[in-house]
């Protein structure tokens, strides 16, 4: 179970005229995600949904509030006062708060991440990418090849084991990222616009493949997207964000059972409601923009 309690992220910036300013990327977002759910974070570009996902995954610390995965806090909240800042700096003077351990390969939380531009390691072959991830999870050497092959077969990459990512197409690279994330059998997969960089046909095929892959598992998936149809087709819950500042506007539960049709009546109705909500926010956005 993932729990975000009043998570806020604030960035200090410097304007063009050298005056100091701040951006509130996420404002007081609270969310509870049950085990095994597929949740989409939906919103216009720059609404802070990616920042929110980073905080869920422990890639950046929240300015206020906290995120818990199975009751364990993901990252310490950033210091607010001067005194706290000094203490924080002293605590993390050598290793950054994001670091796992100096020499021991052990994840802090049982999660895997998938990014829009894949983030598979270009200096490792397809096979090596997966076995490396398994090695980091402490899978013994003798079992790595077998598990990697099993998952690469599932995504249809078993013919390209010795190839490097630069020799693969965008869709194949995303399949590799998917296989690598699933092979370590994580409790949670966080995806940041995973299908945004591929063409529409490939995207729809990847969506179907993803649904087949996770059908009989209880992996919790949190996906950031700006595609309403994608969110509706895949997820159990859609969380709609508004921009400036990024806030959770509404949460839609989708009860339509899988396999879904892309133009289901129930989905279309929620689609219209979400679109109206997003349009309302865009029309009233000018109030916040200076």
């Amino acid at each position, binding site marked *: 179970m993932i729990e975000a309690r009043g998570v806020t992220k604030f960035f200090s910036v410097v304007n063009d005229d050298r005056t100091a300013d701040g951006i509130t990327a996420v404002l007081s977002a609270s969310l509870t995600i049950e085990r095994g759910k597929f949740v989409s974070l939906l919103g216009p570009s720059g609404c802070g949904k990616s920042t929110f996902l980073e905080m869920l995954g422990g890639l950046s610390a929240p300015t206020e509030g906290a995120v818990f995965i199975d009751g364990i806090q993901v990252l310490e909240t950033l210091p607010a006062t001067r005194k706290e800042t000094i203490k924080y700096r002293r605590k993390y003077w050598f290793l950054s708060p994001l670091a796992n351990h100096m020499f021991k390969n052990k994840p802090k939380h049982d999660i895997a991440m998938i990014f829009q*531009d894949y983030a598979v390691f270009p200096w490792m072959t397809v096979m090596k990418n997966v076995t490396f991830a398994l090695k*980091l999870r402490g899978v013994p050497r003798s079992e790595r090849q077998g598990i990697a092959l099993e998952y690469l077969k599932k995504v249809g990459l078993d013919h390209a084991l010795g190839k*490097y990512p630069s020799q693969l197409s965008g869709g194949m690279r995303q399949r590799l990222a998917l296989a690598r994330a699933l092979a370590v059998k994580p409790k949670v997969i966080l995806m940041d616009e995973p299908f945004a960089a591929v063409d529409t046909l490939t995207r729809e095929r990847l969506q179907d493949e993803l649904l087949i892959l996770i059908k009989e598992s209880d992996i919790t998936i949190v996906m950031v997207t700006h595609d309403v149809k994608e969110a509706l087709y895949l997820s159990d819950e859609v969380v709609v964000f508004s921009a400036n500042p990024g806030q959770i506007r509404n949460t839609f539960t989708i009860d339509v059972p899988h396999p879904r049709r892309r133009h289901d009546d129930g989905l279309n109705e929620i689609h219209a409601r979400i679109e109206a909500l997003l349009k309302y926010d865009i029309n009233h956005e000018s109030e916040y923009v200076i």
Partner: protein
Amino acid sequence: MISDKYKLRKPQRFLFAVLRELGFFFKGALGNLFSLEFLMVLVPLLVLWEVLPRYGITGPIIPPFSVVVSTFWHLLTNRGFLHDIGDSMYTFFRGVGLAVLVAIPLGLLTGWNEGIRKRILPLFQLLAPIPAPAWVPITIFLFGIGTPMQVFLIFLGAFYPILFNTFQAVKDTDGRYLASARAFGASEFTLLTRVYFWSALGAIIMSVRTGVSAGLVMLLVAEMYGGNTGIGFVMNEAQSFFQIPVVVASMMTLGIIGWFLIEVLKFLELKLAVWKGGR
């Protein structure tokens, strides 16, 4: 089915692989030099170099090309120039090797960790602007005239470019590689050896190329100031005896050595960064 008769034994296969790689190397390296396009420029230049000094158009100082070549041959056969080249290269590789061994780990550490960076890097940023030849007097006082002083000077020349370029490349490592590796559970040491290093490898080899160029400069400086062997020494001696063909032949030797080393590094880069290639 290929019968066992036609399969090569392991040492033979290894030899074939080495020969093939050597073939690729020389094809790549000499291919640029002996391409038709460049020969159309090189040959007229050499002809001009031969003809102009012979008719005294360029004055009495510049020797014709053929004289330089025959002097080079004379140096090799009668004056043990090969020994000088060997000595120079031995010193050079010790200096550059030391620089690589110290600068790359240091660059990795400073690029990886802000705590280390803030404590160590400013020192080198203060020392680096001192031109390496300015270290000659103090080095001679410290080490005396001889090989240790030469090695140290070459080390100084090659060290800073390798350190700063490695540091910058490691620091610029894409955050998403780090994020996904950390999510899988990578320790910081694993990140250093398996992510940061490989992500920065191209820039590291580039920095070694810069270091080799700077090291050659310092090789010449070191040998001209102190030593009784080496290319720089031969050049210095020839200068004092006014043997201009010897000076020019030494210059050409240095040029060829530098060109060869850069080609070797280019080849190494191609081999190590095979994953960078297109489809």
